[in-house]
Protein backbone atom coordinates (compact mmCIF):
# COMPACT_ATOMS: atom_id res chain seq x y z
CA UNK A 1 0.00 0.00 0.00
CA UNK A 2 2.75 2.34 1.00
CA UNK A 3 4.57 1.33 -2.18
CA UNK A 4 1.57 2.20 -4.33
CA UNK A 5 1.43 5.53 -2.66
CA UNK A 6 5.10 6.19 -3.20
CA UNK A 7 4.88 5.34 -6.91
CA UNK A 8 1.87 7.54 -7.27
CA UNK A 9 3.48 10.45 -5.46
CA UNK A 10 6.62 10.12 -7.52
CA UNK A 11 4.58 10.31 -10.68
CA UNK A 12 2.68 13.29 -9.43
CA UNK A 13 5.85 15.09 -8.44
CA UNK A 14 7.52 14.50 -11.78
CA UNK A 15 4.45 15.56 -13.69
CA UNK A 16 4.12 18.64 -11.55
CA UNK A 17 0.65 17.73 -10.34
CA UNK A 18 1.87 18.36 -6.83
CA UNK A 19 4.67 20.64 -5.72
CA UNK A 20 5.54 19.20 -2.38
CA UNK A 21 4.81 16.26 -0.13
CA UNK A 22 4.55 16.95 3.57
CA UNK A 23 4.67 13.73 5.45
CA UNK A 24 6.40 11.81 8.16
CA UNK A 25 9.90 10.57 7.74
CA UNK A 26 12.69 9.30 9.88
CA UNK A 27 16.07 10.69 10.47
CA UNK A 28 19.11 9.45 12.15
CA UNK A 29 20.14 11.40 15.17
CA UNK A 30 23.40 11.32 17.01
CA UNK A 31 23.22 10.64 20.68
CA UNK A 32 25.69 11.59 23.36
CA UNK A 33 26.76 8.02 23.98
CA UNK A 34 27.80 7.64 20.37
CA UNK A 35 24.76 5.61 19.35
CA UNK A 36 22.42 6.58 16.59
CA UNK A 37 18.70 6.61 16.93
CA UNK A 38 15.86 7.16 14.57
CA UNK A 39 13.44 9.89 15.18
CA UNK A 40 10.20 10.43 13.34
CA UNK A 41 9.79 13.98 12.19
CA UNK A 42 8.01 15.88 9.48
CA UNK A 43 9.66 15.76 6.07
CA UNK A 44 9.14 18.09 3.14
CA UNK A 45 9.80 16.42 -0.13
CA UNK A 46 9.87 18.10 -3.47
CA UNK A 47 12.08 15.68 -5.41
CA UNK A 48 10.83 12.30 -6.50
CA UNK A 49 14.06 10.66 -5.39
CA UNK A 50 13.27 11.50 -1.80
CA UNK A 51 9.83 9.97 -1.63
CA UNK A 52 11.13 6.74 -0.15
CA UNK A 53 11.75 8.55 3.09
CA UNK A 54 8.03 8.50 3.93
CA UNK A 55 7.02 6.32 6.84
CA UNK A 56 3.86 5.62 8.77
CA UNK A 57 4.37 4.47 12.33
CA UNK A 58 3.21 5.07 15.86
CA UNK A 59 5.47 8.03 16.30
CA UNK A 60 3.81 10.07 13.59
CA UNK A 61 2.32 12.27 16.25
CA UNK A 62 2.68 15.76 14.89
CA UNK A 63 -0.32 17.35 13.24
CA UNK A 64 1.02 18.40 9.87
CA UNK A 65 -2.01 20.51 9.06
CA UNK A 66 -0.28 23.32 10.93
CA UNK A 67 2.04 23.86 8.00
CA UNK A 68 -0.79 24.60 5.58
CA UNK A 69 -1.36 28.07 6.93
CA UNK A 70 2.29 29.01 7.28
CA UNK A 71 3.59 31.57 4.84
CA UNK A 72 6.52 29.46 3.69
CA UNK A 73 4.40 26.63 2.36
CA UNK A 74 1.84 28.68 0.52
CA UNK A 75 3.99 29.05 -2.57
CA UNK A 76 4.74 25.39 -3.00
CA UNK A 77 1.98 24.55 -5.44
CA UNK A 78 -0.35 21.69 -4.62
CA UNK A 79 0.61 19.98 -1.42
CA UNK A 80 0.24 16.29 -0.70
CA UNK A 81 -0.26 15.93 3.02
CA UNK A 82 -0.26 12.89 5.26
CA UNK A 83 -3.30 13.17 7.47
CA UNK A 84 -4.46 11.05 10.38
CA UNK A 85 -8.23 10.81 10.89
CA UNK A 86 -8.03 13.20 13.83
CA UNK A 87 -5.95 15.69 11.86
CA UNK A 88 -8.60 15.67 9.18
CA UNK A 89 -10.82 17.58 11.56
CA UNK A 90 -8.32 20.41 11.55
CA UNK A 91 -8.51 20.53 7.78
CA UNK A 92 -12.27 20.79 8.06
CA UNK A 93 -12.05 23.74 10.39
CA UNK A 94 -9.58 25.51 8.13
CA UNK A 95 -11.88 24.89 5.20
CA UNK A 96 -14.83 26.13 7.20
CA UNK A 97 -12.91 29.28 8.01
CA UNK A 98 -11.83 29.68 4.39
CA UNK A 99 -8.18 29.46 5.20
CA UNK A 100 -7.25 26.77 2.75
CA UNK A 101 -8.31 25.80 -0.67
CA UNK A 102 -9.16 22.13 -0.77
CA UNK A 103 -8.15 22.07 -4.41
CA UNK A 104 -4.60 22.89 -3.43
CA UNK A 105 -4.46 19.82 -1.26
CA UNK A 106 -3.90 16.18 -1.98
CA UNK A 107 -4.88 14.36 1.18
CA UNK A 108 -3.13 11.11 1.97
CA UNK A 109 -5.50 9.60 4.50
CA UNK A 110 -3.95 7.27 7.04
CA UNK A 111 -5.69 4.42 8.78
CA UNK A 112 -4.69 4.78 12.35
CA UNK A 113 -4.73 2.66 15.46
CA UNK A 114 -3.37 5.22 17.82
CA UNK A 115 -0.12 7.10 18.16
CA UNK A 116 2.21 7.41 21.11
CA UNK A 117 1.97 10.14 23.69
CA UNK A 118 4.83 12.55 23.54
CA UNK A 119 5.52 15.27 26.01
CA UNK A 120 8.49 17.57 26.18
CA UNK A 121 10.28 15.63 23.50
CA UNK A 122 9.97 12.35 25.33
CA UNK A 123 8.01 9.34 24.20
CA UNK A 124 5.85 8.54 27.17
CA UNK A 125 5.48 4.88 26.30
CA UNK A 126 1.71 4.80 26.09
CA UNK A 127 -1.01 5.90 23.73
CA UNK A 128 -1.79 9.56 23.35
CA UNK A 129 -4.75 10.72 25.42
CA UNK A 130 -6.70 11.78 22.37
CA UNK A 131 -6.44 8.31 20.85
CA UNK A 132 -8.19 6.53 23.64
CA UNK A 133 -11.53 8.04 22.75
CA UNK A 134 -10.97 7.38 19.12
CA UNK A 135 -10.19 3.67 19.43
CA UNK A 136 -12.77 1.01 20.00
CA UNK A 137 -12.14 -1.91 22.32
CA UNK A 138 -10.63 -4.06 19.61
CA UNK A 139 -7.92 -1.47 19.21
CA UNK A 140 -9.08 -0.30 15.81
CA UNK A 141 -9.66 3.29 15.13
CA UNK A 142 -13.26 4.25 14.98
CA UNK A 143 -12.38 7.29 12.96
CA UNK A 144 -10.95 6.26 9.64
CA UNK A 145 -10.18 8.45 6.72
CA UNK A 146 -12.69 7.59 4.08
CA UNK A 147 -11.90 7.86 0.40
CA UNK A 148 -14.38 10.62 -0.22
CA UNK A 149 -12.52 12.92 2.09
CA UNK A 150 -9.02 11.73 1.37
CA UNK A 151 -7.63 11.52 -2.12
CA UNK A 152 -5.88 8.30 -1.34
CA UNK A 153 -6.18 6.11 1.72
CA UNK A 154 -3.38 4.07 3.21
CA UNK A 155 -4.99 1.05 4.73
CA UNK A 156 -1.86 -0.49 6.20
CA UNK A 157 -1.72 -0.03 9.92
CA UNK A 158 1.54 0.75 11.60
CA UNK A 159 3.40 -2.32 12.82
CA UNK A 160 3.73 -3.36 16.39
CA UNK A 161 1.50 -4.35 19.22
CA UNK A 162 -0.90 -2.16 20.98
CA UNK A 163 0.98 -0.04 23.50
CA UNK A 164 -0.49 0.45 26.97
CA UNK A 165 -3.35 2.87 27.04
CA UNK A 166 -2.19 5.41 29.54
CA UNK A 167 -4.56 7.82 31.12
CA UNK A 168 -7.69 9.09 29.59
CA UNK A 169 -8.12 12.83 29.56
CA UNK A 170 -11.81 12.63 30.45
CA UNK A 171 -11.13 10.94 33.76
CA UNK A 172 -8.51 13.57 34.55
CA UNK A 173 -11.04 16.20 33.77
CA UNK A 174 -13.65 14.63 35.97
CA UNK A 175 -11.30 14.47 38.89
CA UNK A 176 -10.23 18.02 38.31
CA UNK A 177 -13.74 19.35 38.22
CA UNK A 178 -14.56 17.73 41.52
CA UNK A 179 -12.06 19.94 43.27
CA UNK A 180 -13.21 23.12 44.97
CA UNK A 181 -12.72 26.26 42.96
CA UNK A 182 -9.87 27.67 45.04
CA UNK A 183 -7.89 24.54 44.44
CA UNK A 184 -8.50 24.70 40.76
CA UNK A 185 -7.39 28.30 40.67
CA UNK A 186 -4.29 27.48 42.67
CA UNK A 187 -3.51 24.63 40.32
CA UNK A 188 -3.60 26.90 37.30
CA UNK A 189 -1.68 29.57 39.11
CA UNK A 190 1.11 27.11 39.61
CA UNK A 191 0.97 25.84 36.08
CA UNK A 192 0.77 29.25 34.47
CA UNK A 193 3.65 30.54 36.57
CA UNK A 194 5.82 28.08 34.68
CA UNK A 195 4.75 29.39 31.30
CA UNK A 196 7.55 31.07 29.36
CA UNK A 197 5.29 32.76 26.84
CA UNK A 198 7.32 31.17 24.10
CA UNK A 199 4.03 30.70 22.28
CA UNK A 200 5.06 27.28 21.06
CA UNK A 201 1.50 26.23 21.80
CA UNK A 202 0.31 28.90 19.41
CA UNK A 203 2.83 28.13 16.70
CA UNK A 204 1.99 24.46 16.74
CA UNK A 205 -1.75 24.86 16.69
CA UNK A 206 -3.29 24.46 13.25
CA UNK A 207 -6.03 26.85 14.27
CA UNK A 208 -3.75 29.65 15.45
CA UNK A 209 -3.07 31.19 12.09
CA UNK A 210 -3.79 34.87 12.80
CA UNK A 211 -1.22 37.14 11.24
CA UNK A 212 -1.59 39.53 14.11
CA UNK A 213 -2.26 37.68 17.31
CA UNK A 214 -3.97 39.68 20.01
CA UNK A 215 -1.22 38.60 22.38
CA UNK A 216 1.37 40.50 20.37
CA UNK A 217 -0.53 43.74 20.15
CA UNK A 218 0.86 46.63 22.08
CA UNK A 219 -1.52 49.37 21.07
CA UNK A 220 -3.84 48.73 22.75
CA UNK A 221 -2.17 46.15 24.89
CA UNK A 222 -5.01 43.93 25.95
CA UNK A 223 -2.81 41.15 27.10
CA UNK A 224 0.31 41.84 29.12
CA UNK A 225 3.22 40.57 27.14
CA UNK A 226 5.35 39.78 30.13
CA UNK A 227 5.36 36.28 31.51
CA UNK A 228 4.16 37.16 34.97
CA UNK A 229 1.13 35.66 36.58
CA UNK A 230 -1.43 38.15 35.31
CA UNK A 231 -0.15 38.15 31.78
CA UNK A 232 0.04 34.39 31.70
CA UNK A 233 -3.43 33.91 33.09
CA UNK A 234 -4.90 36.28 30.61
CA UNK A 235 -2.99 34.73 27.77
CA UNK A 236 -4.12 31.24 28.62
CA UNK A 237 -7.75 32.11 29.11
CA UNK A 238 -7.79 34.06 25.88
CA UNK A 239 -5.99 31.29 24.02
CA UNK A 240 -8.53 28.79 25.25
CA UNK A 241 -11.41 31.10 24.44
CA UNK A 242 -10.23 31.84 20.94
CA UNK A 243 -10.08 28.11 20.34
CA UNK A 244 -13.47 27.37 21.81
CA UNK A 245 -15.53 25.73 19.14
CA UNK A 246 -12.47 25.55 16.90
CA UNK A 247 -10.05 23.34 18.80
CA UNK A 248 -10.13 19.85 17.41
CA UNK A 249 -8.29 18.32 20.32
CA UNK A 250 -5.22 17.30 18.38
CA UNK A 251 -3.08 17.81 21.45
CA UNK A 252 -0.26 19.59 19.66
CA UNK A 253 -0.24 22.53 22.05
CA UNK A 254 0.36 20.32 25.03
CA UNK A 255 2.89 18.18 23.20
CA UNK A 256 5.08 21.10 22.22
CA UNK A 257 4.94 23.02 25.47
CA UNK A 258 8.49 22.95 26.79
CA UNK A 259 7.20 23.49 30.30
CA UNK A 260 4.78 20.59 30.23
CA UNK A 261 1.69 22.63 31.01
CA UNK A 262 -1.45 20.46 30.71
CA UNK A 263 -3.23 22.62 28.17
CA UNK A 264 -5.42 19.78 26.99
CA UNK A 265 -7.26 19.88 30.26
CA UNK A 266 -8.67 23.28 29.36
CA UNK A 267 -9.14 22.41 25.71
CA UNK A 268 -10.98 19.21 26.46
CA UNK A 269 -13.20 21.04 28.91
CA UNK A 270 -14.18 23.51 26.25
CA UNK A 271 -14.71 20.78 23.64
CA UNK A 272 -17.06 19.06 26.08
CA UNK A 273 -18.81 22.30 27.02
CA UNK A 274 -19.47 23.21 23.44
CA UNK A 275 -20.91 19.80 22.76
CA UNK A 276 -22.96 19.88 25.90
CA UNK A 277 -24.41 23.36 25.42
CA UNK A 278 -24.84 23.54 21.67
CA UNK A 279 -24.33 20.04 20.37
CA UNK A 280 -21.51 21.40 18.26
CA UNK A 281 -18.43 19.47 17.30
CA UNK A 282 -15.65 21.35 15.65
CA UNK A 283 -14.17 19.88 12.53
CA UNK A 284 -17.05 17.52 11.98
CA UNK A 285 -18.17 19.09 8.79
CA UNK A 286 -16.46 21.76 6.68
CA UNK A 287 -19.84 23.18 5.70
CA UNK A 288 -21.21 23.95 9.14
CA UNK A 289 -21.33 27.53 10.38
CA UNK A 290 -18.73 28.41 13.01
CA UNK A 291 -19.99 28.08 16.55
CA UNK A 292 -19.87 31.73 17.50
CA UNK A 293 -21.29 33.09 14.29
CA UNK A 294 -24.54 31.27 14.75
CA UNK A 295 -27.14 31.10 17.49
CA UNK A 296 -30.40 29.44 18.30
CA UNK A 297 -33.35 31.21 19.82
CA UNK A 298 -33.43 28.74 22.66
CA UNK A 299 -29.75 28.73 23.57
CA UNK A 300 -29.17 28.22 27.25
CA UNK A 301 -29.60 31.38 29.27
CA UNK A 302 -30.19 29.96 32.68
CA UNK A 303 -27.13 31.80 33.94
CA UNK A 304 -28.51 35.19 32.94
CA UNK A 305 -30.59 37.05 35.45
Amino acid at each position, binding site marked *: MMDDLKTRLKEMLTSGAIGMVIGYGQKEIYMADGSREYRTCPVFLSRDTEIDRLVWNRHCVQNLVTYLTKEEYKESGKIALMVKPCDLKAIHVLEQEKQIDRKRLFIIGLTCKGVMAEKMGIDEGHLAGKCIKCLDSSGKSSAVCTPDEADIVIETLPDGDMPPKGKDISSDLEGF*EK*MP*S*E*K*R*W*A*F*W*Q*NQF*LKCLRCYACRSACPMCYCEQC*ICDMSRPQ*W*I*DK*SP*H*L*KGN*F*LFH*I*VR*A*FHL*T*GRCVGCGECERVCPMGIPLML*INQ*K*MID*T*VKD*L*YGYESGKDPEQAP*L*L*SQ*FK*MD*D*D*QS*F*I*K
Partner: protein
Amino acid sequence: MKKIKDKPQESEDLLLEKDRLWQPRIVAFLCNWCSYAGADLAGTSRIKYNPQIRIIRVPCSGRVNPLFILRAFIDGADGVLVSGCHPGDCHYSTGNYFARRKFALLKRLIEFCGMDERRIHFSWVSAAEGSKWSQVVNDVVNAVYQAGPFTGFDLPVFSKETEIETPADLCKQGPERFAYSIDLMSRTGKK
Protein backbone atom coordinates in the same frame (compact mmCIF):
# COMPACT_ATOMS: atom_id res chain seq x y z
CA MET B 1 -16.06 44.95 56.24
CA LYS B 2 -13.74 42.10 55.91
CA LYS B 3 -10.27 43.14 55.30
CA ILE B 4 -8.35 46.28 55.65
CA LYS B 5 -6.43 47.03 52.54
CA ASP B 6 -2.94 48.33 52.36
CA LYS B 7 -2.69 52.00 51.82
CA PRO B 8 -3.99 52.47 48.31
CA GLN B 9 -1.87 54.02 45.62
CA GLU B 10 -2.51 57.56 44.64
CA SER B 11 -4.12 56.47 41.42
CA GLU B 12 -6.65 54.32 43.18
CA ASP B 13 -10.16 55.17 43.97
CA LEU B 14 -10.77 58.03 46.35
CA LEU B 15 -13.47 56.14 48.08
CA LEU B 16 -10.99 53.56 49.15
CA GLU B 17 -8.65 56.17 50.38
CA LYS B 18 -11.32 57.71 52.49
CA ASP B 19 -12.45 54.91 54.63
CA ARG B 20 -9.71 52.41 53.85
CA LEU B 21 -12.15 49.62 54.24
CA TRP B 22 -12.77 47.11 51.59
CA GLN B 23 -15.58 47.88 49.25
CA PRO B 24 -16.21 45.68 46.28
CA ARG B 25 -15.22 47.16 42.96
CA ILE B 26 -17.65 46.01 40.35
CA VAL B 27 -17.44 46.88 36.70
CA ALA B 28 -20.69 46.82 34.78
CA PHE B 29 -20.91 46.81 31.00
CA LEU B 30 -24.32 48.08 29.97
CA CYS B 31 -25.76 48.24 26.52
CA ASN B 32 -26.73 51.69 25.46
CA TRP B 33 -30.27 50.92 24.41
CA CYS B 34 -31.76 48.90 27.23
CA SER B 35 -29.75 48.41 30.38
CA TYR B 36 -28.14 51.81 30.38
CA ALA B 37 -31.52 53.39 29.89
CA GLY B 38 -32.85 51.11 32.61
CA ALA B 39 -30.17 52.35 34.98
CA ASP B 40 -31.07 55.88 33.99
CA LEU B 41 -34.67 55.22 34.77
CA ALA B 42 -33.71 53.85 38.16
CA GLY B 43 -31.86 57.09 38.74
CA THR B 44 -34.63 59.41 37.63
CA SER B 45 -37.17 57.40 39.62
CA ARG B 46 -34.92 57.85 42.67
CA ILE B 47 -34.63 54.13 43.27
CA LYS B 48 -31.79 53.49 45.66
CA TYR B 49 -29.19 50.86 44.93
CA ASN B 50 -25.66 50.02 45.96
CA PRO B 51 -23.10 52.48 44.67
CA GLN B 52 -20.17 50.09 44.30
CA ILE B 53 -20.87 49.59 40.66
CA ARG B 54 -18.94 51.40 37.90
CA ILE B 55 -20.79 51.55 34.68
CA ILE B 56 -19.21 51.38 31.25
CA ARG B 57 -21.58 52.03 28.40
CA VAL B 58 -21.25 49.94 25.27
CA PRO B 59 -23.41 50.03 22.15
CA CYS B 60 -24.66 46.47 22.55
CA SER B 61 -24.02 43.47 24.74
CA GLY B 62 -22.64 41.94 21.57
CA ARG B 63 -19.87 44.51 21.75
CA VAL B 64 -18.65 43.10 25.01
CA ASN B 65 -15.53 41.27 24.08
CA PRO B 66 -14.76 38.62 26.69
CA LEU B 67 -11.42 40.37 26.98
CA PHE B 68 -13.18 43.35 28.55
CA ILE B 69 -14.36 41.13 31.34
CA LEU B 70 -10.99 39.49 31.87
CA ARG B 71 -9.19 42.79 31.67
CA ALA B 72 -11.48 44.20 34.34
CA PHE B 73 -10.43 41.43 36.69
CA ILE B 74 -6.78 41.88 35.81
CA ASP B 75 -7.01 45.58 36.53
CA GLY B 76 -8.49 45.07 39.93
CA ALA B 77 -12.21 44.49 39.70
CA ASP B 78 -13.72 42.19 42.28
CA GLY B 79 -16.73 41.43 40.16
CA VAL B 80 -18.13 42.05 36.71
CA LEU B 81 -21.69 42.48 35.51
CA VAL B 82 -22.75 42.51 31.89
CA SER B 83 -26.22 43.60 31.06
CA GLY B 84 -28.08 43.95 27.78
CA CYS B 85 -31.48 43.92 26.16
CA HIS B 86 -33.80 40.98 26.57
CA PRO B 87 -33.60 38.48 23.71
CA GLY B 88 -35.69 39.81 20.88
CA ASP B 89 -35.29 43.43 21.97
CA CYS B 90 -31.78 44.03 20.67
CA HIS B 91 -31.44 47.32 18.88
CA TYR B 92 -29.34 45.53 16.31
CA SER B 93 -31.78 42.61 16.28
CA THR B 94 -29.38 39.76 17.02
CA GLY B 95 -26.41 41.17 18.96
CA ASN B 96 -27.45 39.73 22.26
CA TYR B 97 -28.06 36.27 20.84
CA PHE B 98 -24.46 36.08 19.71
CA ALA B 99 -23.32 37.57 22.99
CA ARG B 100 -25.26 34.96 24.92
CA ARG B 101 -23.16 32.17 23.46
CA LYS B 102 -19.92 33.94 24.22
CA PHE B 103 -20.95 34.68 27.78
CA ALA B 104 -22.08 31.14 28.45
CA LEU B 105 -18.75 29.80 27.24
CA LEU B 106 -16.64 32.38 28.98
CA LYS B 107 -18.44 31.80 32.23
CA ARG B 108 -17.88 28.08 32.03
CA LEU B 109 -14.26 28.59 31.07
CA ILE B 110 -13.25 30.87 33.86
CA GLU B 111 -15.25 28.98 36.41
CA PHE B 112 -13.44 25.87 35.30
CA CYS B 113 -10.18 27.68 35.96
CA GLY B 114 -11.41 28.28 39.46
CA MET B 115 -12.96 31.73 39.39
CA ASP B 116 -15.60 32.14 42.04
CA GLU B 117 -18.99 32.10 40.32
CA ARG B 118 -20.18 34.88 42.59
CA ARG B 119 -17.95 37.32 40.74
CA ILE B 120 -19.32 37.17 37.26
CA HIS B 121 -22.91 38.05 36.43
CA PHE B 122 -25.06 38.56 33.40
CA SER B 123 -28.49 40.06 33.16
CA TRP B 124 -31.10 41.28 30.74
CA VAL B 125 -32.54 44.60 31.83
CA SER B 126 -34.82 46.61 29.57
CA ALA B 127 -35.21 50.38 29.47
CA ALA B 128 -38.39 50.09 31.46
CA GLU B 129 -36.98 47.95 34.23
CA GLY B 130 -35.54 50.49 36.63
CA SER B 131 -36.52 48.44 39.62
CA LYS B 132 -35.16 45.24 38.15
CA TRP B 133 -31.89 47.08 37.61
CA SER B 134 -31.65 48.09 41.24
CA GLN B 135 -32.46 44.53 42.25
CA VAL B 136 -29.79 43.12 39.96
CA VAL B 137 -27.19 45.54 41.27
CA ASN B 138 -28.02 44.76 44.86
CA ASP B 139 -27.79 41.04 44.19
CA VAL B 140 -24.50 41.40 42.40
CA VAL B 141 -22.99 43.61 45.07
CA ASN B 142 -24.09 41.19 47.74
CA ALA B 143 -22.66 38.23 45.93
CA VAL B 144 -19.33 39.94 45.36
CA TYR B 145 -19.34 41.11 48.93
CA GLN B 146 -19.63 37.57 50.08
CA ALA B 147 -16.91 36.44 47.74
CA GLY B 148 -14.59 39.03 49.23
CA PRO B 149 -11.71 40.86 47.60
CA PHE B 150 -10.41 39.22 44.47
CA THR B 151 -6.86 38.13 45.04
CA GLY B 152 -6.60 35.59 42.27
CA PHE B 153 -3.82 37.44 40.51
CA ASP B 154 -1.76 38.10 43.57
CA LEU B 155 1.05 35.68 43.66
CA PRO B 156 0.48 32.61 45.70
CA VAL B 157 2.12 33.27 49.01
CA PHE B 158 4.23 30.47 50.33
CA SER B 159 5.84 30.75 53.63
CA LYS B 160 6.63 28.23 56.29
CA GLU B 161 3.71 29.22 58.50
CA THR B 162 0.99 29.38 55.90
CA GLU B 163 2.04 26.36 53.87
CA ILE B 164 -0.56 26.49 51.16
CA GLU B 165 -1.79 22.98 50.70
CA THR B 166 -3.67 23.42 47.50
CA PRO B 167 -1.19 23.19 44.64
CA ALA B 168 1.12 21.01 46.65
CA ASP B 169 -1.46 18.28 47.09
CA LEU B 170 -2.53 18.65 43.61
CA CYS B 171 0.56 18.16 41.59
CA LYS B 172 2.43 16.33 44.31
CA GLN B 173 4.95 19.05 44.22
CA GLY B 174 6.68 21.14 46.78
CA PRO B 175 5.53 24.69 47.11
CA GLU B 176 6.66 27.04 44.40
CA ARG B 177 9.68 28.81 45.61
CA PHE B 178 10.21 31.12 42.77
CA ALA B 179 11.53 33.58 45.22
CA TYR B 180 13.52 35.61 42.81
CA SER B 181 10.74 35.90 40.34
CA ILE B 182 8.13 36.33 43.01
CA ASP B 183 10.20 39.18 44.16
CA LEU B 184 10.16 40.65 40.71
CA MET B 185 6.67 39.73 39.81
CA SER B 186 5.04 40.89 42.96
CA ARG B 187 5.91 44.38 41.92
CA THR B 188 3.81 44.05 38.86
CA GLY B 189 1.49 41.52 40.37
CA LYS B 190 0.01 43.78 42.99
CA LYS B 191 -3.26 45.40 42.42
